[in-house]
């Protein structure tokens, strides 16, 4: 499926059966990202199709406290 990784909107084609598999394939922690398809946030167990287009949003911010 077509994956767009924010904030730079880099595109990547990834084969994954579920959202959990997708994050694992990308080497990303589930607590550090949201996976969004057609404006909806997806839970880890959601099955993905080959023709899906999903976005991965990072949620981590750092710096001054």
């Amino acid at each position, binding site marked *: 499926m077509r994956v767009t990784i*924010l*904030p730079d909107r880099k595109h990547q084609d990834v084969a994954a059966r579920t959202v959990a598999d997708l994050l694992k394939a990308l080497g990303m*922690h*589930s*607590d*550090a*990202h*949201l996976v*969004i398809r057609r404006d*909806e*946030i*997806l*839970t*880890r*167990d*959601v099955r993905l199709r080959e023709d899906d287009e999903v976005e991965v*949003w*990072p*949620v*981590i*911010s*750092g*710096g*001054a*406290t």
Partner: protein
Amino acid sequence: MRCIRCRKPAHVEVRRHRSAFCAGCYPGWFRTQVQRTIDDDHMFTHDDRILIAVSGGKDSLALWHTLLELGYEADGMYIRLGIADYSRRSQAKCEAFALKHGQTLHQVDLKEEYGFTVPMLRKEREGKPCAACGTVKRYHFNRVAADLGYSVVATGHNLDDEAATLFGNVLHWQTDFLGRQGPVLESTHPKLVRKVKPLYRLAERDTAAYSVIERVDYILEECPMAKGAKSLFYKDTLNALEEAQPGAKQRFLMGFLKQGREAVGVAREPVDLRECSRCGSPTTAEVCAYCRMTERAKQKLAASTA
């Protein structure tokens, strides 16, 4: 996965609570968590005037949105740090939020009003841009709150922020900082406004999901000056642990606040605070840390342009 409230398909999983919510039920759960935190830690009441330190990021804008939804009187304050395009975009997000919700947004412009920017401080304090930025933010948020009569300053620090700070302080056994870390910093001087962190029990992912569902438009990219910050490395390390042991971050932080903090000795703000000879802000020294830092930066700038 199904929503634990209405059994519809879930959108947001909260693994550490073994819960999941649909987009309809999630904002209510989120706001209940914030209200419970405010009440449990006696942060403020509906009689208080709250100043929210906003950066344009998800946490501070989600906090502002939540407090307004909960019926609190909460204004925003944004500091123009002068970090090129990043500052301009984050300022625009804050202004758009204030306009959309009909709220007051106070602003301080470091360059126009004080003659320096955060990137200039970075040159002054090599390797510690975030520490310098933190000093600037704490100083101005407190000063504006005190001058305008706000009773409390609220920041968007979340569970991940607090766990990462704790991790760093434990790693280096900074017992002074450990004794100071907590969700409420009481006022110990008439010019020192109380500070609270109403999101400290909610994870970074929780606030991002709230912002997406409630359509809070925030700046997604990282501050360019935070690249390589230790806090980001600590968060990554803790998230690796969380992946294997859901709830690890929460147990680490809450366990510290319940048991560990007493063990290292809860620090009290010094009672012999005096006023800075330059700016009048509360400090333990003749000249406060903010004035010392900015004076050095300005001197260095003058020397380099002479």
